[in-house]
């Protein structure tokens, strides 16, 4: 009964979303405020309605209504309460519901603002958000219905349908399969909502861009209005990506955080386009240039957001043929195609209105360097896009499956990331407008001197790998430039205003938080780069079967196998846990507990690495459960991951830098009417 109610609410919301599209279009062309207001109210109503449906689904999940296929597939009796709640987005159908819910929440938040002088944009913002919402709702209603229940047909098969097939009997299983053990990790519980928050928030700047194109407004109002949305989208997408990395590191037992898996790469692509957008809108705000390019970037970001959801949700990676079998794939494909072509057509239609107000004056100006930054991000994006879709093309054309794995991405993206680091060092020293290589050179030489010492010191310390040498030197360069920028700004204030250096630094950052927060974000990125370089260049690994008391050596550490124990856990797992003692130079450092969990209802094993983590390195020990494990002897795979912790430290710094850059400034906001 509740399931039918939830489904009914879905259908109603879908119709409302369609109505709001129609009303907004009529309102725009008839210049009727009443129709636009009707569209707005319909839009606003979708949020409480979807919330009602989500609460219904949550209730069904928590109370174990296993007659519903979705509830059956993601929950079970032994699962704790909080996991039953998170099961809401633990499966395909639920995650699409989450998409719709967030879309409707964000769209409502936007339509609630005071529109005053931007009222002409309103109908088209409603159209774009409602069309997106209606699309995702239609997927839930037609193909991935979380409210579908189990039936047994006359032929004896079990099928999941909303309504009874002819002659079928309703069946209710006593217990469910439970959430995929891989998804029971804190990182994985928060990772999808974060990623989706980022994905959906990017729809808002896109909606305003389209509204600006349709209404023919060529100023940067749409950018200023949605700056906060863009930043928030970017923040959540970044956090989502980092959580995904952490999850992979903790749960997969592969020794690394990123494997260039197509699903990972698909979620990175919108981030790349979004990051390029975030940089290039600054040029439009400052100089009134690159209006067409910014439009193109936000259109691309939106397309990649939908494309990323499509790639991870359509099963297209297992096979292009699986894609053709499920109707959800072609639906996505058509939606991406239609929205992309329409958006680009609109852009071409307005192309001439969006010409730059001033021309580029120098190759060394900040705007030129920003453009170079965009080129590099687009380069990485092309590599990722091509690497992800090539296997599909190959399978379609030749019928042969191929894998595009890490060597391809590392070779192609490595130099591009290096160039981005170099640019991150140079660009902050350039000026807007006229900046010659002389002025740039004058600004560069001071931070350049300490940078030049870095490779020498590193080489003396024994770093001879040239990738590491170049990488760490570039990282040092960015750090010196950024610190120099803080120092130089604070010094000049100190002299002018007679302030104490620290006060000067504080006021400087406070007055232009966007810039100095941005610098902090740059710093966090290079701190992350330290971790990435460390593990990519210097990771070592070894595997050995050990009898109790035997040891394994890696990177100066000795790891001794002490004991193994097996015990059941309250949530139905059977845990097998080894105890490993770590020594260095004969000194005992601590114990590591690698383990594997065997989930009884689903029969799925999980390998959880034991990790000893310091700022210098991680010892990452996997109890290799896929080989023969016994109390007397067990196989262990050990990874030595130098510097990897800096990746996570950098991620935390990133959030701090972001808060500095984006924390609301109340008075100014009110004046500018930001949302």
């Amino acid at each position: 009964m509740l399931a039918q109610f939830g489904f009914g609410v879905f259908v109603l919301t879908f119709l409302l979303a369609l109505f709001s599209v129609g009303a907004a279009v009529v309102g725009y062309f008839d210049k009727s405020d009443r129709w636009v207001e009707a569209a707005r109210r319909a839009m606003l109503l979708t949020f409480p309605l979807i919330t009602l449906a989500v609460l219904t689904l949550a209730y069904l999940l928590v109370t174990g209504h296993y007659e519903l296929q979705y509830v059956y597939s993601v929950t079970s009796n032994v699962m704790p309460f909080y996991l039953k709640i998170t099961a809401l987005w633990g499966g395909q159908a639920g995650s699409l519901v989450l998409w719709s819910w967030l879309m409707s929440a964000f769209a409502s938040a936007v339509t609630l603002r005071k529109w005053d002088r931007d009222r002409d944009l309103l109908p088209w913002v409603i159209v774009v958000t409602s069309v997106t919402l209606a699309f995702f709702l239609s997927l839930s209603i037609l193909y991935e219905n979380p409210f579908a229940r189990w039936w047994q047909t006359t032929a004896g098969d079990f099928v999941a349908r909303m309504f009874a097939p002819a002659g079928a009997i309703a069946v209710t299983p006593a217990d469910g399969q439970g959430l995929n053990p891989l998804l029971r990790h804190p990182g994985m519980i928060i990772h999808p909502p974060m990623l989706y928050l980022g994905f959906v928030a990017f729809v808002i700047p896109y909606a305003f861009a389209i509204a600006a194109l349709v209404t023919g407004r060529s100023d940067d109002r749409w950018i200023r209005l949605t700056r906060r949305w863009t930043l928030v989208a970017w923040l959540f997408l970044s956090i989502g990506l980092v959580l995904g990395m952490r999850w992979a590191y903790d749960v997969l037992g592969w020794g690394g955080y990123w494997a260039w898996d197509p699903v990972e790469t698909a979620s990175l692509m919108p981030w790349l386009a979004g990051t390029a957008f975030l940089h290039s809108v600054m040029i439009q705000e400052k100089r009134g240039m690159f209006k067409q390019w910014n439009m193109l970037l936000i259109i691309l970001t939106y397309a990649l957001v939908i494309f990323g959801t499509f790639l991870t949700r359509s099963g297209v990676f297992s096979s292009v043929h699986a894609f053709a079998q499920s109707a959800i794939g072609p639906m996505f494909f058509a939606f991406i195609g239609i929205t992309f072509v329409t958006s680009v057509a609109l852009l071409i239609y307005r192309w001439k209105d969006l010409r730059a107000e001033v021309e580029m004056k120098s190759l060394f100006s900040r705007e030129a360097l920003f453009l170079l930054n965009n080129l590099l991000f687009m380069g990485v994006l092309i590599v990722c896009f091509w690497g992800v879709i090539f296997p599909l093309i190959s399978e379609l054309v030749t019928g042969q499956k191929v894998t595009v794995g890490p060597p391809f991405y590392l070779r192609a993206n490595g130099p591009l990331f290096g160039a981005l680091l170099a640019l991150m060092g140079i660009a902050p020293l350039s000026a807007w407008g006229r900046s010659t290589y002389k002025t740039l050179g004058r600004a560069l030489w001071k931070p350049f001197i300490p940078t030049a010492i870095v490779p020498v010191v590193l080489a003396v310390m024994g770093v001879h790998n040239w990738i590491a040498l170049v990488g760490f030197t570039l990282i040092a360069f960015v750090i010196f430039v950024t610190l120099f920028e803080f120092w130089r700004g604070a010094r000049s204030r100190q002299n002018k205003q007679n302030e104490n250096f620290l006060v000067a630094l504080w006021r400087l950052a406070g007055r232009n938080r966007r810039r100095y927060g941005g610098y902090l974000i740059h710093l966090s990125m290079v701190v992350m780069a330290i971790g990435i370089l460390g593990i990519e260049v210097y990771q070592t690994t070894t595997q050995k079967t050990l009898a109790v008391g035997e040891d394994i050596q890696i990177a100066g550490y000795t790891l001794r196998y002490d004991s193994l124990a097996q015990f059941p856990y309250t949530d139905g797992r059977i845990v097998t846990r080894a105890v490993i003692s770590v020594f260095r130079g004969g000194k005992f450092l601590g114990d590591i507990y690698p383990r594997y969990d065997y989930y009884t209802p689903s029969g799925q094993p999980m390998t959880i690495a034991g990790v000893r983590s310091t700022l210098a390195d991680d010892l990452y020990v996997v109890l290799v459960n896929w080989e023969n494990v016994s109390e007397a002897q067990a196989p262990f795979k050990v990874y030595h991951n130098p510097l990897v912790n800096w990746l996570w430290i950098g991620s935390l710094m990133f959030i701090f830098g972001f808060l500095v850059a984006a924390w609301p400034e109340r008075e100014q906001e009110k004046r500018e009417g930001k949302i």
Partner: protein
Amino acid sequence: MKTKIIFLLTIYFLLLAAALIPSVAVSAQQPTPSDDQVNAIARQLYCPVCENTPLDVCPTTACHQWRELIRQMLAEGKSEAEIKQYFVDYYGARVLSEPPRTGINWLVYVVPPVAFLAGVTLLFRAFQTWKRVAKEPVTGVDDSSSPGSGPGPAEGSGTAADEEYVARLEEELKKRK
């Protein structure tokens, strides 16, 4: 006589044994290949059944057997290339971590650099147009073509630049007040 024959036979067998010992020792020096040797190859291969899972970390039974197969082939003295080729012959090119450089697969390597170079060219040409447009009204500002002028740390120009920087910074901060 008899003792002589026994003596000679003993010598013979001792010599034979001595001749055999090195070969016995050689085969004893070839123990079963270690996990690390197996993983070094398995890491470069992808599981033929699971999606995008490297063979050295894949927990399925099938993959366990494949790793044992690698071990066996290594013990037989097969080279890394031969072992990889064996897997390609049996399970197709998808077991490799990159598409083999043949036929249509060349596209995977050619398209990204071509697209990137196209971007560079486009940007470079755009820069040139902009520079021409910009040069017309502002004359003699850009002297970047003059040779031999490094980032001169000349005191005078340095302070001038510093003052310019301070002025710009102040202006920017004022704007934001």
